[in-house]
């Protein structure tokens, strides 16, 4: 008798399998609370459940995982307790709950999600990781790729922004996730059983139930559509002000139609920054660029210039900051951000640290330059000026200081800073004009490089340095057909890290071409 036939007589192994649930969360998100709820739910309904977790220091704000197995308790059997696993087996997880979108991605990467058997329930909100946030440019991971992988990898992929739902209910994301789990109908317990478990927990029952209901209802609707970039507001027919209407007319007459929306966004900012005449200067600059542009390509040069020239013209000087900080709309916005109730009072304290450089920049050009060129004076004044100042904008005294500073806007054109910024813009646009004839794509890229100039004080200086280096390299590359690609790569590299290490590397590569 061979082994196979010996087996034929043996008792058939019980094919019953537990339901396996993995919760992927970040430390501090309440994953443990959710796991406890699910275990209590199972036990209250006559099931056997086991959960495990790996808390400890490793959990402080980092990615962590909770794992639960459950199956119905045997009635009248004498076979004792089931043997439940302490770690998930890839390919054998029935439900994956992710408390954040990238954690859903991590669960997929770890093969806990399979198309045959896994329901993936995820909050689609993002809580950015440190490596995403420290990038000087845009380091945000591509959410759409995770959503795409989820659609391919899971049997069912259910998601929406549960952090927003939790906030709406003044509750925590774990309650919304539990609601979503109930709504997904993957566990053999009805809504009432879930709610009974929350009630039995006894902590923050009402808010948790509201958040639970939110999760339950929303998960049963189709997932939200992908985020599409908000369309720019169109160029209005008129503004209700004759001076502004003249500017709008100029846009229509002098600039190509595909650029109008971006031009309007820029124009609005520029006029807001200074005055109507400054808007006119903006259009002068754009009109000059537009003459070099190519209709067949959709006028990318003008569109990009509309954005970058506006940002460059609206440099952040003391006057601008004081203006933005004192506006009524800003007072309202802060109240909204801190979620203040109508009967509560809100006072702002600004953290300002003007240096002597900023002070000189705000003085009439000749005076400012004179101080800058007199080292002892520059230093002496610096000692007086250069310190952190906590400005209580909501008090009359401090408000008046900022109000007066903002009022210096009328003298802005004569300041040292204005002269410097204007010269920088002129040199940059000159280069763009020269390049446009020689290598059109390169000119577009040079326009885009203005994005590197941002921030205040040291950060601003570093940004300017990067801009100068990229633009210098661009000029050396001008005759190469792939120059635009190279400059794009250089710009991306410059936005990767603060010190410009990636840019150094990229420049070396370029130098070796």
């Amino acid at each position: 008798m061979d082994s196979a036939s010996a087996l034929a007589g043996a008792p058939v192994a019980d094919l019953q399998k537990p339901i396996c649930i993995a919760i992927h969360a970040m430390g501090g998100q309440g994953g443990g609370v959710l796991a406890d709820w699910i275990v209590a739910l199972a036990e209250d309904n006559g099931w056997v459940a086991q959960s495990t977790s790996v808390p400890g220091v490793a959990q402080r704000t980092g990615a962590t995982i909770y794992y639960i197995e459950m199956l119905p308790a045997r009635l009248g059997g004498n076979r004792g307790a089931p043997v439940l696993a302490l770690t998930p087996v890839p390919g054998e997880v029935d439900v994956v709950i992710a408390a954040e979108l990238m954690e859903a991605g991590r669960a997929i990467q770890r093969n806990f999600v399979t198309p045959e058997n896994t329901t993936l329930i995820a909050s689609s909100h993002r809580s950015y990781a440190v490596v995403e946030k420290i990038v000087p440019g845009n380091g945000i991971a591509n959410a759409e790729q995770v959503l795409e992988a989820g659609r391919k990898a899971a049997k069912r992929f259910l998601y929406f922004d549960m952090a927003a739902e939790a906030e709406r209910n003044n509750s925590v994301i774990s309650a919304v996730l539990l609601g979503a789990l109930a709504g997904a109908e993957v566990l053999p317990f009805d809504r009432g059983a879930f709610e009974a478990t929350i009630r039995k927990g006894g902590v923050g029952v009402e808010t948790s139930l509201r958040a639970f209901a939110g999760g339950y209802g929303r998960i049963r609707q189709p997932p939200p559509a992908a985020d599409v970039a908000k369309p720019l507001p169109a160029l209005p027919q008129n503004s209700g002000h004759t001076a502004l209407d003249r500017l709008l007319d100029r846009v229509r007459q002098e600039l190509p139609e595909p650029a109008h929306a971006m031009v309007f966004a820029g124009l609005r900012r520029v006029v807001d920054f200074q005055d109507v005449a400054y808007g006119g200067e903006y259009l002068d600059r754009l009109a000059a660029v537009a003459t070099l542009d190519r209709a067949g390509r959709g006028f990318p040069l003008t569109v990009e210039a509309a954005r970058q020239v506006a940002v460059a013209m609206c440099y952040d000087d003391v006057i601008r900051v004081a203006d933005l900080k004192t506006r009524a709309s800003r007072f309202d916005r802060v109240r909204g951000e801190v979620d203040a109730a109508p009967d509560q009072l809100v006072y702002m304290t600004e953290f300002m640290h003007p240096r002597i450089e900023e002070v000189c920049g705000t003085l009439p050009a000749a005076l400012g330059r004179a101080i800058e060129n007199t080292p002892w004076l520059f230093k002496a004044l610096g000692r007086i000026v250069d310190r952190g100042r906590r400005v209580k904008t909501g008090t009359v005294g401090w408000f008046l200081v900022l109000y007066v500073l903002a009022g210096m806007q009328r003298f802005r054109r004569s300041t040292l800073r204005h002269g410097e910024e204007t010269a920088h813009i002129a040199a940059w646009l000159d280069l763009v004009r020269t390049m446009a004839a020689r290598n059109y794509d390169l000119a577009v890229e040079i326009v885009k490089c203005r994005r590197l100039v941002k921030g205040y004080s040291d950060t601003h200086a570093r940004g300017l340095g990067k801009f100068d280096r990229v633009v210098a390299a661009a000029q050396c590359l001008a005759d190469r057909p792939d120059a635009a690609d190279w400059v794009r790569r250089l710009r991306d590299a410059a936005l990767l890290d603060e010190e410009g290490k990636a840019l150094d590397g990229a420049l070396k590569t370029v130098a070796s071409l």
Partner: protein
Amino acid sequence: MAERSFAREVRDLRLGAGQEFHGEGILAITKALLQCGVGYVAGYQGAPISHLMDVLADAQDILGELGVHFETSANEGAAAATLAASVPYPIRGAVTWKSTAGTNVASDALSNLASGGVTGGALIIIGEDYGEGSSIMQERSHAFAMKSQIWLLDPRPNLPSIVKAVEDGFELSEASNTPVMLEVRIRACHVHGSFVAKDNQKPAFPISEALASPRRNVDRIVLPPASFDHEQDKIKRRWPAAIDFIKQRRLNEIFADGEQDVGIIMQGGMYNSVIRALQLNGLADVYGESRVPLYVLNVTYPLVEDEITDFCRSKRSVLIVEEGQPEFLEQNIRSILHKAKLTTTIRGKDILPMAGEYTGGVVLDGVRRFIEDEAGHLLVGSEVAQRVAAMREIPEVKALAGVVPPRPPGFCTGCPERPIFSAMALVEKELGQHHISCDIGCHLFSVLPPFNLGATTMGYGLGQSSAAAFNVPGEKRAISMMGDGGFWHNGLASGIGNAVFNKADNVILVVDNHYAAATGGQDVLSSRASNPSRSTNNTIERAVRGVGVKWVKHIKRTYDVARMRDTLKEALTTLQKGPKLIVASSECMLNKQRREKPLFNRAVKDGKRMVREKFGVDEDVCTGDHACIRLSGCPSLSMKVSDDPLKEDPVAHVESSCVGCGNCGEVAEAVVLCPSFYRADVIYNPTKGDRFMARVRAGVIGYLQRRRAARRVVFA
């Protein structure tokens, strides 16, 4: 006392015979200790055994009623030394810590303890911090058991088995006069399950009786010639006694023997994963009914040779499932079979990985390979393997490799240690890079982005000791870090005392967050809270002056980034010789919030005037360069995509989880970052005076705002 309440867990310790205990593995062990009539418990907290310490610390009533002494040890060495009470007296004692980190520290005492042997049962509960979630070096505690002849239990990871292991452990220890280690892995410590409780027992021999009538036995003391006798006694008497006990009491378990001519030997802790692997291959059911013979080693040291040979004799081939390296069990079993001249094939680390955690997937792969190679006739199609293989090939899944960002642990929102490293980053920008020796504790997160500060970490409280070599005249000074936890663990003596003694010129930064925060917020000598059962408020500053440090600066608010930076600079540049010590104190935010949040909410409810501080970023002032984030890394300081089409990069944004610690503003101010940060003080229940002032201010400010807005010519 930790700012977290363990009232419910303490209640469970009172369960009596027949009642069902529901909870974590480590708490089941805590309850089991009391059921076994333990006389004293000592230990040093750390994941995964912190809850044992926390719950007992909160259970002074019960301990008092039973006459059990609970000792919060200074470190694991001190905890192990506590077991000395079980050497001459028939008192059961238990100690606990995180392993192998803690066992390293405890080794000195453990070796002495094991040499002389014990009279009362001595149980060492080892939280094996290995695999996912571990925060320490990946090693095995097994080697400690082998070198000192301490018996090692590794029970099946369910609550009844773990509780039984505690009972067996005490008896085995007493039967063989040898301390016993009970190894419990992270997940087993945190597994939620149940067992049927027994009544708690008072210690049979109370500690007070030992004090009243002291005993001594010079033969148990490690001093020649007794120490030579100890070694002989271990081998000739204690070992056989242990083997007899293990066999008689059937501590190891055999399942389904005779079913096949192949079998599996495993550590008890691997049992559940092996059953699941067999189940997924159609060879077991979820109740553990296996078709493959299993030999489960609930005692992994020493091995019982007869049991091994008996199990293997009838098998062509045996798989050993042994987590961790080196493969002590496999080597031992091969040697046993060789001596017995058995030809059974041994499979193990050849088809299972030598290193790394044996997760469900790993064990499944290994067991599958074993069946394929050694018992092909048992093989049925496995969907799992195909499923996972197919899944790995999905292009969208493959593409995630470059998308999903790593998310290591980091400083919590509002952590008082963050500004210390912000300041240190600023100092480095000015004075250049320095050699920085780190320590164990939350502050070690400084080595990760965004700070990237710190070169080495050599052990708890060893921050300064690991900078000891850098005591030569040079351009720059070395900096060493130490937390208050590490400071009291051993750093005061080994690091700071000796820095004074050796006239070190280093800068020592002691991070004082008022707790052993990384292990769960336990009190230490310098904690500020008043604790009825412990002496607190013994300051670090007094301690270091006491051991002779002359240059001491105490920063009482770490969030003062500018002051922190200037003090560090001064320490690095002062001409004074000797160690320069900075104590940087601010309370752990996690614990502070646990304490203060409920108080705040209650005060608001009671109608009291309260001020909540929260930070924010003016979106239109922020240029999206993220310089502030690079000096912070706070989870609340995040980003959002701007609605402004002119802003291409995401702008900084403060999330509602902000606790208003002030770091953002301080950094912005100290570094001249940008003026976009603001602090909003939200006044709850404003007084009449508040409201009057608010009306006056709103009147003046509102008038000016309307005046300017009316003059502005802008697009709507």
